[in-house]
């Protein structure tokens, strides 16, 4: 093949060009408006430098939202992986390949549901009077159980739905990963009378370290997109108990005051933080 091949350029240029325009223009524009004092009702704004950014750090709701977001990330990523590994191993150990495939198909259902659907399904299930999930508690104690209106339990209840969607899905992926492992080390360990949990803890999971870290990485990115769940289930409430950063940016920019520039400065900070964090993790994963 001496002749120069035009295919890479022809195939790559349009897609990359469009991606670059579609991604870079809004990003640059977000930074641009974050230095203004633009509002929804007033299309023209003037430059105010870093004022929005400075205001953010004395904004108690912003600080609260950072805390809620970090808690949300830690809880949903941790629980999802724990459930995924646990159920993945059980799928591999306890059932025949046919049942395994059937269960794998069922476990995909929650993650394929639109988040709005999942959020509503569970919001109704947790309804204090008519919900199916709260019914047992009500039947035993005679008291209604209102998890979503209680600041102490609201975030955990929404997190449960997120973990329900992703944990079962990731369990299927862990199962597929286990299926790709060569069987020899396991047989050797069995000959040495290793217990089942020892085989997983010391052989299988260390062999899967890299893909499991990638899974954690994917979940960290996905957890940042939980806006729809929170929006439908609690709208950030009760009070600000479930107000994550994107929820707060949304209510500042659209619901309460229409301060687009202020919301934008928040979004820019999120963008910088996630870009740095994920670039760092990605380089380590590779």
């Amino acid at each position, binding site marked *: 093949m001496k002749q120069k*091949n035009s*295919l*890479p350029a022809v*195939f*790559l240029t349009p*897609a*990359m060009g*469009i*991606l670059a325009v*579609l*991604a870079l*223009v*809004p*990003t640059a*524009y977000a930074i641009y*408006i974050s230095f203004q004092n*633009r509002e929804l009702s007033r299309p023209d704004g003037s430059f105010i430098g870093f004022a929005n950014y400075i205001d953010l750090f004395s904004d108690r709701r912003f600080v609260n939202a950072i805390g809620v977001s970090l808690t949300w990330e830690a809880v949903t990523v941790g629980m999802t992986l724990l459930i995924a590994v646990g*159920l993945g191993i*059980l799928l591999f150990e*306890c*059932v025949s390949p046919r049942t395994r495939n059937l269960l794998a*198909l*069922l476990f*995909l*259902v*929650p993650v*394929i*549901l*639109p*988040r*709005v*659907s999942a959020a*509503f*399904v569970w*919001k*109704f*299930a947790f309804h204090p009077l*008519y919900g199916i999930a709260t*019914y047992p508690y009500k*039947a035993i104690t005679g008291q209604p159980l209102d998890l979503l209106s209680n600041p102490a339990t609201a975030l955990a209840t929404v997190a449960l739905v997120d973990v329900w969607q992703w944990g*079962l899905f990731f*369990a*299927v992926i862990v199962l597929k990963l286990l*299926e*790709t492992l060569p069987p020899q080390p396991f047989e050797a360990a069995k000959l040495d009378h290793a217990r*089942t949990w020892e085989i997983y803890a010391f052989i299988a999971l260390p062999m899967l370290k890299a893909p499991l870290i990638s899974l954690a990485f994917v979940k960290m*990115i996905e957890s940042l*997109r939980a806006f*729809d769940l929170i*929006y439908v289930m609690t709208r950030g409430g009760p009070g600000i108990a479930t107000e994550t950063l*994107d929820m707060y*940016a*949304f209510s500042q920019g659209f619901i309460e005051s229409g301060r*687009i520039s202020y919301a*934008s400065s928040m*979004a820019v900070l*999120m*963008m910088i933080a*996630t*870009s740095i964090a994920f670039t760092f993790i990605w380089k380590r994963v590779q």
Partner: protein
Amino acid sequence: MTAHTLGRLIGRLILGLAAFSAIFPMFWTALNAFKNRVDIVTPTPLFIFEPTLDNFAYVLGRESVFAGLVNSLLISGAAVLIGAVLGLPAAYAIARYPNRWSRDIQFFVLSLRFLPPVAIAIPLMVIWLDFGLYDTRLSMIVTYSLLTLATIIWLSVPAFARVPKEVEEAARVDGYGPYAIFFLIALPIALRSLIGAVAFAFVLVWNEFLIALMLTTSDAKTLPIVASELTQLGRDVPWGILNASVVLLSIPPLLFIGVLSGMLNSAFKRKIQ
């Protein structure tokens, strides 16, 4: 031995509970969609009741739901089409013609997934307003193309990389040019995984919520937004209608469950042997 059998039994029990939790909520929602209001608003959950189609008739008869359905189909369909037409060739070029930028390109595509949706949606709203395209299907299609293009490229690169190189070499020896190899050899061989990638992109934009919420107000509203508005209907909530609209919203993604599971299976095929 008995401990082992007992362990298996407990494991199966846990798996059974997990499977139950996976499908029962949706099953219950579907059941409620066929109930009259009095059968839903009862102190004890009802499994046996007189089914009604009123909820579905009401939902489908509502103009906003119908418009949302049409919008969702058009916008998701067009964005997926653009993503596939541009994304599949790009993914093939990345997989088969690695150069010094390949890793950077892949990282750039992935990095689009890091961007917080709010950070994209706010400036896009302002941009579309300035262009006079705010709340139009066109602006939604363009915005969603970013999502579908990035997703399809990301998932298709490994699918093309799994096509055996020898087959492409053989075709080259037979006199096929690079484009013919892509269209006649690589594309058909990788087809199953590629369909999975495209289906995944469709599910993603069909389910998308935040961007649609911020970029539409009436004309281009998608079904998730319409459904979420139904859930905010104040005190006298029409539960049956709500359940019916949730079922309706969930059907298209669920239709792809077989395709997506096939994609997972081919993505994790054992490489040794």
